């Protein structure tokens, strides 16, 4: 049985309103989506690898990251704590990254040692090109899962967290 005119109109109204609502939602989502990173991204060329000796952590301001070396391996570690986004400073006295907000502690490779963080510190891919360390800051590489610690280095004698700010 074909629908009455009333039913057909009612259905059309509902479909039309649904489409309009969908279009509004889509427009809003597209408009609110973050713009592509205007600050560049891509490859960030740094110093030659010899500038980053074993057991060191060097802060790279332009990339908001640390370049570290543990057990011979180079790492580029995002300064942002994977827990709640605080900046994690490097504590030279303990040789650890110690988050000031909730006390998460990571080793030089950014692997999780203790505290409430859900994984190790996020980082970026590191390559050696033409004798220089190059960090690919266009894509964040998620930190190692909890419990995975392949690059542990011995802890230093001190710690920074308890120092009065």
């Amino acid at each position: 049985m074909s629908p009455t005119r009333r039913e057909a109109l009612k259905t059309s109204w509902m479909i039309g309103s649904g489409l309009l609502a969908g279009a509004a939602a889509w427009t809003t989502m597209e408009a609110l989506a973050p713009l592509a990173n205007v600050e560049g991204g891509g490859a960030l060329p740094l110093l030659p690898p010899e500038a980053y000796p074993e057991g060191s952590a060097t802060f790279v301001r332009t990339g908001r990251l640390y370049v570290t070396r543990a057990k011979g391996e180079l790492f580029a570690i995002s300064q942002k704590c994977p827990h709640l986004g605080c900046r994690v400073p490097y504590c030279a006295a303990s040789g650890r990254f110690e988050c000031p907000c909730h006390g998460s502690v990571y080793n030089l490779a950014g692997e999780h040692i203790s505290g409430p963080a859900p994984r190790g510190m996020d980082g970026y891919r590191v390559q050696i090109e033409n004798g220089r360390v190059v960090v690919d800051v266009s894509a964040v590489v998620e930190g190692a899962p909890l419990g995975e610690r392949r690059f542990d280095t011995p802890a230093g004698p001190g710690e920074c967290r308890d120092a009065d700010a």
Partner: protein
Amino acid sequence: MIDSLVARAQRSTLYRSIFRTPRDDSPTARALTAFGNVFLHVYPVRVPRKLLAVRSTWRLGSISAVLYAILLVTGVYLMFFYTPAVTMAYGDMQRLQTAVGFGQLIRNVHRWSAHLMVLAVALHLVRVFWDGAYKAPRQFNWVIGVALFVVTLAYSFTGYLLPWDQLAYWAVTVGSDLVHYVPVAGGWLRNVLLGGATIGQSALLRFYVLHVMVLTAVFFLLMAVHTWRVRKDGLSIGDRLVPLTPHTLPVPPAPNVPTVARANSARAESVRVRQMGVVHAASAEAHARLPDDEVFTSPHMLVRHQVVALLTTAVVIVMGVLFDAPLRDHANPNLTPEPAKAPWYFVGIQELLAHFDPLVAGVLAPGALLFLLAALPYVDRNPARLPSARPLAMSLFMTLALVAVTLTVIGALFRGPGWAFVLPWEHWYFEP
């Protein structure tokens, strides 16, 4: 001389076209004051006498509304001096505090009113729970109230970022990073909220637009419905005048008009008028039965509300004179202050985060709590209103409230750098 001039002005056609209500002391005039005025129309003509006592409601809803009005006025002042740009915002704040006349005071009053409003709205919620005023027929108004509480928190949180100092930047970093633990859509949600992976220009502008425009529109809409429903359902304190039977409200209209009311023709007429859609039959019936338990809104309730408004305003002005709103160093994404604390009403969640998985402590626990709060009138089917007659609901609610307060106090006062335990009388790390 002046008296006669005033009297003459009041007799003029112009005056009488504006104020159409007679101003004598007759019951008609008193009734018409509330009835014939668009603003006073939010009041019923008469209110239960019990409402005149402060302890009936502790005036918490009124205090919240007054604080909101103060926030609107001071907020508009602040908008004249503020640019939502990362290069300008902090300098604007400094200029506001040092160069603009009364700028510091206006900012202080805005800030303290905002904090007090979160407190007042939360206490209003507790009071309404305590009196069982969320029960039929007011279930949905409770849900709207919970939504208004959420909007109040959103207001406070978005406003927190705007000064663009270290306090603002890191409190909002910690707060908004919670969002990305939301299952499935978390990362996308945070990106939409911040307009990027970290807090920057997009986030500042988005928070500003949400703060001054979007939330204001939502708040007005919800507030209109909230007030309208209070008015329609009658005041819950009036319910106690009629014997309460479970699930009988609202009473069906016309045929059930009580005989008491029918006997009194004038009163029956007023009941009929109310049933035409102004007030629920149930509350009209309550009014009809015990008319002596009521007083005219004008002047009795109006005077009390004016006192509430004046006292609230006085309190925030005194606070604004005595205490300056904090403004720390310029926001610095490369330096997290120790400790970095969320705004005080979220610091309980932050404390929970130190003990549990972020998904549990940051998203599931607050989400479940909020859902339970909103669903409360539909879950709690016990019709009793007296606290002593509903031990289960009371003990559950008060336990949760106590846990929330304890977590907040520990997080705000007893936590220092690295979230280590400190004693507040030795090291003070709390900034409002």
